[in-house]
């Protein structure tokens, strides 16, 4: 066991165990999925799971959660009490209790006149390797506060003896972080109660200072003193002292002495303070003294029909004790396999690249991405081979599910797994996962009607968790019969809403809820369009999108999203009829642009229409042709978020035949682009892009399976794919950079593929707006148009010094305008 593991074990075994809350301590947040939850979802869903209702397994779940799943798959109970402890990272009481107890002590002290001011109390002390070791815990402060209150009640707050007592207790707590403290000497006439209390304070001070042998002796002496009110704590505190002594100086003698003392505590009469801690202390000692033995013991306890209350910490200890023979801990073998752990299954690809750094930045990015893709593929393949072997050897459903989740649809052997999954009875805890994975592997080739029938039967069940239902809805949407049916199937219920269904994930991961994607404003709302449904919508032709934008089964904020992106497409396609139709839809949905919508509808000439359209777009930084990268406008115009593309209209007949829709990975939540995709930055490289897309899973984002989930377009969408492709050719691509400009690197937006300088003959809508405003100085909208263009360039793409030109014209022509006053700078 290396140093880090040793320290980790020591930290994990301290009693009571300190809680680390990764959400706060793991760094900044990023957007996570809102319709899936690897922590089990809300309270009701978690309770159902602990009761044995296993939904679709997410291998990305915490190992403790997967351990619970393993038990349930094997018909072993988990139960609500232990289940809740397994669904959160282990271990310990919430920090809030300790914090409150320390604060209660600080407040209790104030009852003593002239008590020294104590702003804050440090309760840990420097440990090894830049860490701090918890030393004093909440219970000590609670005891001190109640003791002080009792002494005040008996002797008065102004009693000099009480003051001495308080000074002594302050020294004890000072020792939490700094050794070398001392208690004030007692006068010979000090009352007996104070002498007894101070004896206890001395023992505690020595304990916190790390002088465990002396502390043990002192606590033992207190235990032998019939007049000490603290004698009943003696057995426990002697045991703790010897326990800490053994951790600090691990020798066979120290372990033996600690064990003897703790065994004695365990044998003490019921009601002895601390007696219930004995088992945990013995276990913690044994893990240090005999890790291999304890590993076997823990594995056995965790595989038993009835789980101990300490199951969560036992499981954590088992994991921390390190790798063991698979036969000894099959659950850990299964967990590593289903997670396709790269460190286990592709260790060679974990190492840094050894070759020289390429000159060209593109080559660098490409090499890093290629190696990440290779690692992910190698890990999946190796893990799948292992899962196959285990399944063949055991015919254990857990291993079948692992193999299924690791398979790609066209994998050799997938057919055999699919057949085995089809044989799972609906009553099996493996059924829902087996069905989900089986459909994933066959949806492209199976008869849509059969797939629909099977999924409809599942969706009629009332015992599905929100996550599981959303996953099956995502599959069902891919075989939707009609657009109207698709609209209904595209909706997903949010797992953890703003009001929180007592989800635990907000406390334990660093993924924040997405914004502006629900049927409410900002973070509000409970329904949204699933990401894979967005992918399908983005592949629809204009006419189909227009019909969808009018479907009243979609809440109005979601219709706004579809209508606005459709409006942008219609504008670029110069389809005036479609533009007007969508404009009428958008008037009530986006009233902030009411005047602009009226301007579009009132335009009589092509030139006027383009100006009106450009003016709309100048106010919508988040407007896009696709839902993949669209940002919903919310609040006032000034509050709309996003960055403007360089909107250009291509002349008819000049569509780009190579234009592609956003790739599947573009629909991943931000956090999962990091965690699930093989390379965080996808280079503008067609081959690597193709490889990454081939591994993508825009339904579950890699949380459900290491194998890919290529999206199947519903038949009615696929039939119009050619039209959608033709239209796509008129939508702008993002620019690629990669050139030095002064001392600035410019990299391109690389999720969308490459592009090049503006297409010849294309018309910039920003130029349209500028030229109009320049030629119509008396138009009252002109100052605002110029102001907007400065803003567009500032938070968009550079365009022929447009920002500077607009700024100069605005200030020259309209010096008194409010728009001019607000434009203090230009950005060029």
């Amino acid at each position, binding site marked *: 066991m290396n*140093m880090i593991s040793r320290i980790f074990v020591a930290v994990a075994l301290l009693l009571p165990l300190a809680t680390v809350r990764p959400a706060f301590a793991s760094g900044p947040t990023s957007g996570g999925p809102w319709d899936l939850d690897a922590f089990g979802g809300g309270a009701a869903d978690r309770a159902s799971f602990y009761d044995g209702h296993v939904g679709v397994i997410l291998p990305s779940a915490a190992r403790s959660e997967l351990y619970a799943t393993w038990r349930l798959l094997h018909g072993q109970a988990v139960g609500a009490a232990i289940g809740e402890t397994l669904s959160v990272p282990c271990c310990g009481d919430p920090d*809030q209790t300790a914090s409150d107890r320390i604060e209660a002590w600080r407040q209790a002290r104030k009852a003593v006149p002239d008590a020294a001011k104590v702003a804050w109390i440090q309760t840990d002390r420097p440990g090894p390797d830049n860490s701090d070791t918890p030393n004093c815990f909440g219970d000590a402060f609670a005891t001190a506060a109640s003791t002080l209150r009792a002494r005040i009640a008996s002797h008065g707050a102004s009693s000099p003896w009480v003051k001495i007592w308080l000074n002594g207790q302050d020294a004890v707590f000072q020792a939490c972080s700094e050794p070398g403290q001392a208690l004030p000497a007692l006068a010979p006439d000090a009352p007996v109660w104070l002498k007894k209390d101070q004896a206890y304070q001395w023992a505690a001070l020595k304990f916190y200072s790390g002088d465990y042998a002396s502390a043990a002796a002192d606590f033992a002496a207190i235990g032998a003193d019939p007049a000490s009110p603290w004698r009943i704590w003696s057995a426990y505190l002697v045991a703790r002292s010897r326990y800490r002594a053994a951790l600090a100086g691990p020798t066979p003698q120290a372990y033996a002495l600690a064990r003897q003392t703790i065994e004695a505590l365990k044998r003490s009469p019921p009601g002895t303070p601390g007696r219930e801690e004995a088992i945990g202390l013995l276990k913690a000692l044994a893990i240090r003294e005999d890790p291999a033995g304890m590993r076997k013991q823990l594995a056995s306890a965790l595989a038993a029909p009835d789980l101990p209350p300490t199951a969560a910490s036992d499981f954590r200890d088992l994991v921390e004790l390190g790798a063991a023979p698979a036969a000894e801990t099959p659950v850990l073998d299964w967990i590593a396999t289903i997670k396709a752990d790269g460190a286990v299954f592709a260790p060679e690809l974990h190492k840094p*690249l050894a070759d020289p*750094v390429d000159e060209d930045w593109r080559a660098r990015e490409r090499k890093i991405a290629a190696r990440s893709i290779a690692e992910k593929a190698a890990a999946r393949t190796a893990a799948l081979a292992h899962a196959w072997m285990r399944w063949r050897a055991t015919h254990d459903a857990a291993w079948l599910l692992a193999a299924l989740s690791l398979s790609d649809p066209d994998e050799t052997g997938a057919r055999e797994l699919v057949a085995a999954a089809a044989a799972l009875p609906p009553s099996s805890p493996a059924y829902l996962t087996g069905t989900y994975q089986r459909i994933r592997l066959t949806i492209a080739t199976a008869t849509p009607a059969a797939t629909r029938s099977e999924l409809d039967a599942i969706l009629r069940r009332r015992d599905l968790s929100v996550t599981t239902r959303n996953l099956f809805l995502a599959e069902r949407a891919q075989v939707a019969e009609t657009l109207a049916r698709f609209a209904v199937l595209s909706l997903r219920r949010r797992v953890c809403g703003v009001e929180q269904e007592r989800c635990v994930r907000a406390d334990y991961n660093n993924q924040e809820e997405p914004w502006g994607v629900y049927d409410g404003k900002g973070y509000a709302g409970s329904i949204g369009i699933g990401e894979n449904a967005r992918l399908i919508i983005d592949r629809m032709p204009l006419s189909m999108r227009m019909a969808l934008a009018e479907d009243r089964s979609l809440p109005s904020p979601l219709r706004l999203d579809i209508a606005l992106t459709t409006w942008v497409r219609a504008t670029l396609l110069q389809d005036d009829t479609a533009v007007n139709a969508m404009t009428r839809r958008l008037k009530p949905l986006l009233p902030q642009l009411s005047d602009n919508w009226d301007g579009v509808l009132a335009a009589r000439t092509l030139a006027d229409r383009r100006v009106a359209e450009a003016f709309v777009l100048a106010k919508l930084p988040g407007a896009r042709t696709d839902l993949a990268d669209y940002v919903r406008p919310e609040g006032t115009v000034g509050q709309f978020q996003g*960055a403007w593309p360089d909107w250009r209209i291509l002349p008819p007949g000049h569509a780009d035949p190579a234009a592609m829709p956003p790739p599947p990975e573009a629909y991943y939540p931000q956090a999962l682009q990091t965690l699930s995709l093989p390379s965080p930055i996808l280079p503008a490289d067609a081959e690597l892009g193709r490889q990454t897309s081939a591994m993508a899973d825009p339904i579950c984002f890699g949380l459900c399976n290491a194998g890919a989930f290529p999206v199947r377009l519903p038949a009615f969408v696929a039939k119009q794919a050619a039209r959608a492709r033709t239209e796509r050719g008129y939508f702008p691509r993002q620019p690629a950079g990669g050139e030095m400009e002064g001392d600035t690197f410019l990299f391109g937006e690389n999720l969308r593929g490459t592009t090049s300088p503006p297409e010849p003959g294309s018309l910039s809508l920003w130029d349209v707006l500028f030229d109009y405003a320049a030629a119509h100085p008396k138009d009252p909208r002109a100052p605002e148009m110029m102001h907007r263009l400065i803003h567009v360039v500032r*938070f968009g*793409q550079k365009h022929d010094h447009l920002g500077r030109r607009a700024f100069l014209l605005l200030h020259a022509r309209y010096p008194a305008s409010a728009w001019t006053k607000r434009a203090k700078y230009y950005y060029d």
Partner: protein
Amino acid sequence: MTTRLSICFTVAVALLIACQGPAAARDFKPGATVLWAWERPEDLRFAGPGVEVAAMTGFVVLSGNHVWARGRRFPLEVDPAARRIAMVHVQIDRRRPLVMSAELRRALAAAVLTYARPPGFFGVQIDFEVRASERPVLLNLLRDIRAALPESVPLSITALASWCETEDWLRGAPVDEIVPMLFRMGPAGEEVWAGLGSGDFRQPECHSAVGLSTDSRIDRLKRGRRVYLFDPKPWTPRAFADILRRLSP
């Protein structure tokens, strides 16, 4: 004569004092690469002595009317010669209304200072995200920390990109470095990146350093500034090598 000599001597001494210049500048090395070591086991020895480490050494919570704090719980190993910055993370417990008072302000400063000065760390960084109504809490904390730190100890803060771009309330904050974090920016992120494409952060105080993540874009990066690097997973030699490769000029 004696009086003239005295005057000359006095003037000479005064000139000598004046020519000493200001006290030695606090030292954040320009252009350095800094790895953020967050609250998890980290072994950064592979990075060598030339890379600085900003390690989370303290975790402080303002909860209602009191402060709770603890030190780092996970081991951190670094090259013995690597320069280290003590990063103290502060947050407000959103489950309880904050009741700020002079006493709480003192307690907060005391807690932060406790974890801001471990042996062997040359600088301090405060990581404290606040809402608009809580800005005085952060600014007061910075003043208190600055006043309590030795003059030679540089003070840095992390900042949301918007604090450097559309807001100017950090102007005049008693810090030697502001590190705008160009990752996890949410919906406003595209706007920030787009703005950087046509210039730099509006606040010049934000021009000396930047924070990036291994999984974020790193384009539009001005050279010569200190680069703080975050990895959402524990650092590995490979992740480190990859990000350095991507940052290579």
